[in-house]
């Protein structure tokens, strides 16, 4: 049954083929393009399920089973020297298998959804071509057994992300957002490339697992961990940090998170597929894949490796930071975008504090409920004729019952509603490990972020689905472009191709949590290669119970607060200020403007400058003036004397040198004449001089 291991390349190859063929198709063959893409994705899903079955059938003893095929891609330079070949390969292990199924399953549903969502778009075929290309690259990234192959797919994923964000390139904002996303992630990718080159120069291979020779296997890791760089950190830490920078860029972690909200300019299925479920999770996957490197620590020393500390801190900060911003946003997709950033922060927190299984579990559950939320949001937008401002929605519960029901499930899963929703279990697990970490602060930040998550989701749902319809009322009085007049458009439910994926995703958002509960941690066992034991008693251990109580209470508190503010007395008018805004306008403005990062710098620096200047002014007027006045009389006398010396001695010399400088400048600027042949002459003379030096050197030596 090693058939699937040797045919693993087929999984990315089928969508790639579909992309290639639909790229060559005439753009009017819409139905054919969509059929091709969906068929390819379905094939990939079937193969992925086979791969998962294979991985489940071969449980490891204490460590996961890894099977793969490596092949030589390039051999260059002297064939006898080492480190002159580049190998590529794929590997099937539980991590890859789980990701494969997730990506192809979510991808398939989103493809189906797109048929309905993009039905009226002119460039329908092109859209499916890009989507297929993206799916191929993402699946290739997942099965890669070589950092190089992973990096290639990583870049293709970035490229398709660029293409899809800017899919409606006629809109300047979409074009700008595409560029912003591409360039911002490129910063992280540069670091990733550097890390890769460094790793290659240190180990001579980029294969992850290669029968003991790979760069993630103990021999290489212990060597990397033992060496230190000139900065005093271990080489493995340096490489790990550089690779993590790539993950920061792709997963929108704090310093480089700015592109992800703007990326919502793309079509909603793209937001769901790329900017919620798969691509941004690729950062988490990368960290999980190279986790052994990140966790490498010199033998005989205890402690937490520096890379993991950085990951944990960045994750915790991102989780809180983005969740607080999401509280004050009004664009339905932007709220979800900040929520995604926040959840990615949770994943990083889980990876850093708890290891691969914890982070990956949240990644998986998040992929399902977040794509559900995005697709639901897309359905809402579709139903409201392109409206994205939640203040102008409202009351949609009655018009879009299916969307409402599934959206509510997604919202409860995201908030981590206890016991029955997947988000609860994965988040609880993260808290469990964060609690045992070396610093308590990531846990506190995470708990606050969870509270905020429940709050902003309650706010969003109240705004969108409850109360009265506020369509047709401009959000701010006198705002240009706002629709005027009565409700011009009655919201409607979306077609079946859109609601069906919603329902499937909703189902999985609920049940997926049960494969990783403390009672039956099958998923964690699957990833780490240990068998899971069912222990009902685990649920009632005080430790677990305490945490469950804590997170449940947080969720209830968040949801309750949200209801208190927004659901109790729904806003009647789109122009009505946010209840939170009435309560604390200053804080709200801070959040709505994303913490005023730019403005804050400007204000603080200018204030400081002004204060310093007035202090100097005071000093100048009151203290120094008197003294200066006194001194000045004496100085004037001296000055008169000085003038004589100055004019007749110093100035002559000074003027002379000035004149010399001017003339020299003129002469030198003649060299920079812009005439090519002048430059070539200089080169020619230089050549002659060089050869002369060479001859002289030969004879002298």
């Amino acid at each position, binding site marked *: 049954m090693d058939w699937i291991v040797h045919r693993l390349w087929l999984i990315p190859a089928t969508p790639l083929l579909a992309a290639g063929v639909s790229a060559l198709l005439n753009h009017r063959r819409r139905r054919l393009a969509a059929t091709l893409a969906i068929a390819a994705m379905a094939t990939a899903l079937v193969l992925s399920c086979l791969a998962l079955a294979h991985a489940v059938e071969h449980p490891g003893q204490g460590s996961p089973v890894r099977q793969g095929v490596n092949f030589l891609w390039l051999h260059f330079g002297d064939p006898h020297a080492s480190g002159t070949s580049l190998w590529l390969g794929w590997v099937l292990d539980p991590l890859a298998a789980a990701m494969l199924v997730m990506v192809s399953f979510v991808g398939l549903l989103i493809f189906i959804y797109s048929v309905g969502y993009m039905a009226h778009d002119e460039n329908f075929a092109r859209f499916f071509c890009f989507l297929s290309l993206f799916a191929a690259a993402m699946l290739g990234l997942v099965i890669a057994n070589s950092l190089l192959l992973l990096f290639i797919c990583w870049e293709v994923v970035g490229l398709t992300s660029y293409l899809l964000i800017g899919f409606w390139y006629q809109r300047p904002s979409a074009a700008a957002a595409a560029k912003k996303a591409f360039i911002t992630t490129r910063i992280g990718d540069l670091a990733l490339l550097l890390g890769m080159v460094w790793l290659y120069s240190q180990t001579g291979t980029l294969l992850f697992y290669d029968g003991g020779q790979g760069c993630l296997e103990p021999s290489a890791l212990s060597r990397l961990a033992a060496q230190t760089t000139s900065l005093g950190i271990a080489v493995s830490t340096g490489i790990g940090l550089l690779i993590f920078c790539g993950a920061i860029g792709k997963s929108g972690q704090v310093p480089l998170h700015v592109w992800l909200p703007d990326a919502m300019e793309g079509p909603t299925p793209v937001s769901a597929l790329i900017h919620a479920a798969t691509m941004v999770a690729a950062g988490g996957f990368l960290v999980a894949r190279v986790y052994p490197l990140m966790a490498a620590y010199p033998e005989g020393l205890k402690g937490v490796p520096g890379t993991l500390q950085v990951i944990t801190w960045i994750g915790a900060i991102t989780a809180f930071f983005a969740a607080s911003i999401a509280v004050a946003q009004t664009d339905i997709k932007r709220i979800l975008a900040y929520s995604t950033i926040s959840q990615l922060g949770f994943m990083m927190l889980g990876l850093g504090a708890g290891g691969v299984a914890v982070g990956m579990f949240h990644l998986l559950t998040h992929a399902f409920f977040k794509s559900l939320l995005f697709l639901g949001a897309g359905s809402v937008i579709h139903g409201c004729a392109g409206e994205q401002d939640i203040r102008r929605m409202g009351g949609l519960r009655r018009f879009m019952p299916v969307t409402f029901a599934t959206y509510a499930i997604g919202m409860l899963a995201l908030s981590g509603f206890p016991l029955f929703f997947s988000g609860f279990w994965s988040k609880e697990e993260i808290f469990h490990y964060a609690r045992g970490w070396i610093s308590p602060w990531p846990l506190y930040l995470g708990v606050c972020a969870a509270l905020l998550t429940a709050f902003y989701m309650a706010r969003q749902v109240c705004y969108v689905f409850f109360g009265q319809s506020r369509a047709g009322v401009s959000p701010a009085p006198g705002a240009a472009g706002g629709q005027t007049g009565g409700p011009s458009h009655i919201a409607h439910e979306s077609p079946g191709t859109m609601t069906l994926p919603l329902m499937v995703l909703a189902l999985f958002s609920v049940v997926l949590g049960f494969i990783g509960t403390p009672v039956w941690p099958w998923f964690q066992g699957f990833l780490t290669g240990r068998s899971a034991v069912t222990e009902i008693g685990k649920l009632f251990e005080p430790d677990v119970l305490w945490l469950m109580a804590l997170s449940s209470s947080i969720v209830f508190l968040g949801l309750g607060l949200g209801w208190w503010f927004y659901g109790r007395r729904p806003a009647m008018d789109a122009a009505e200020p946010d209840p939170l805004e009435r309560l604390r306008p200053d804080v709200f403005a801070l959040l709505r403007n994303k913490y005023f990062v730019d403005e804050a710098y400007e204000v603080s620096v200018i204030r400081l400058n002004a204060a310093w200047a007035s202090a100097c002014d005071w000093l100048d007027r009151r203290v120094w003036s008197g003294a200066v006045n006194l001194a000045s009389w004496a100085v004037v006398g001296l000055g008169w004397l000085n003038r004589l010396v100055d004019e007749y001695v110093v100035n002559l010399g000074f003027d002379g040198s000035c004149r010399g400088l001017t003339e020299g400048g003129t002469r030198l600027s003649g060299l*920079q*004449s*812009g*005439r*090519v*042949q002048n430059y*070539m*002459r200089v080169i*020619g003379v230089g050549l002659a001089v060089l050869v002369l030096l060479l001859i002289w050197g030969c004879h002298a030596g």
Partner: protein
Amino acid sequence: MTPLAAYLLLSALLFAIGLAGALTRRNAIIVLIGIELMLNAANLNFIAFWRFGPNPEALTGVVFVLFSIGVAAAEAAVGLALILSIYRHYRTTNLEQVDSLKG
């Protein structure tokens, strides 16, 4: 004089002729031709060293010349495209009139 020295002298002469042309002619295209001649002179050197060098089975000289020919083709394409766009802008290919450092 050994054959190698003779070839090297020939190539030096060819190089000098190309250089003289590139330095003295006004027309940009002729300057480009001069540069191509210089490149050819260098290629001749490589082949001569390959032929008369101590280990001709290494093929390094030949491979280098092949690559150099490829680069020369790319260079000619870009160079002539530049000359064309300069011609469109200034209506001349005289290098003495094309000395403004800003477009």
